[in-house]
């Protein structure tokens, strides 16, 4: 049994309104020096050792992320 982390982020060319809103809020909060924020999704999966990398990749590519707009990384 292992913990696998998949992070999904919008592709750089796709507008990220939530990230932009955070940048705006930071200014109002008086926090300076954060020039950009992008918001994505973070998944923590409990995975049997029997599940191989290829299955995980397929899962991320078809279900957890939409490759039209998102990129993902897998950490095992």
């Amino acid at each position: 049994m292992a913990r696998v982390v998949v992070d999904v982020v919008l592709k750089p060319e796709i507008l990220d309104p939530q990230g932009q809103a955070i940048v705006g809020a930071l200014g109002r909060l008086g926090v300076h020096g954060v020039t950009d924020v992008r918001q994505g999704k973070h998944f923590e999966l409990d995975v049997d050792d029997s599940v191989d990398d290829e299955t995980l990749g397929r899962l991320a590519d078809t279900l957890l992320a939409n490759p039209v707009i998102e990129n993902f990384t897998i950490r095992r």
Partner: protein
Amino acid sequence: MRVGVVTFPGSLDDRDAARAVRIAGAESVALWHADPSLHEVDAVVLPGGFSYGDYLRCGAIARFAPVMESVIAAANDGLPVLGICNGFQVLCESHLLPGALIRNDHRKFVCKEQLLRVDNAATAWTTEYREGQEIVIPLKNGEGGYVADEHTLDELEAEGRVVVRYLNGNPNGSQRDIAGICNAAGNVVGLMPHPEHAVEALTGPGTDGLGFFLSLVGVLA
């Protein structure tokens, strides 16, 4: 004439879509997400709602429902399919339509009566309209911003596959004010606004939405 309306767990506008189908003069047939059979319908509506809670991404989980395999195959064979709101999202996730729908740029759910222009009056679902006709139908979504890469957008425009566009201000940040598109054959249409909520003067902003369903009935007749 039989028009299937799919119910996924979390579908909300399925009854409304069925009502619109009936008002347009066709028979509505309830299709269940777990049942791969299309029960010999002549067209399919994927209604609005929050299938599977829209928890992962809108439409992402519904796309894998058994009924969708049949819908995808039949759509590729020319079956008329209309995806409304969540149904549009399911069509994009299923790659029956290009692009994707993301969070509204203002980050809020928006529910309003929306002015639209019909840019393609030749699809299976829009023959009742005139090209350039302006209509008002409800819009209600949290993730209605249409995005695609520039190449795809250019292609959609060049092929006349932008079916409806937002007028009077863009309500959700959709690229090129796109409110609805179709596939190359014109049988599959995805719309963010809800024509099924504008089929009776009593309960909607008017009856401008009825044309989508009447078009289908006309095309199939």
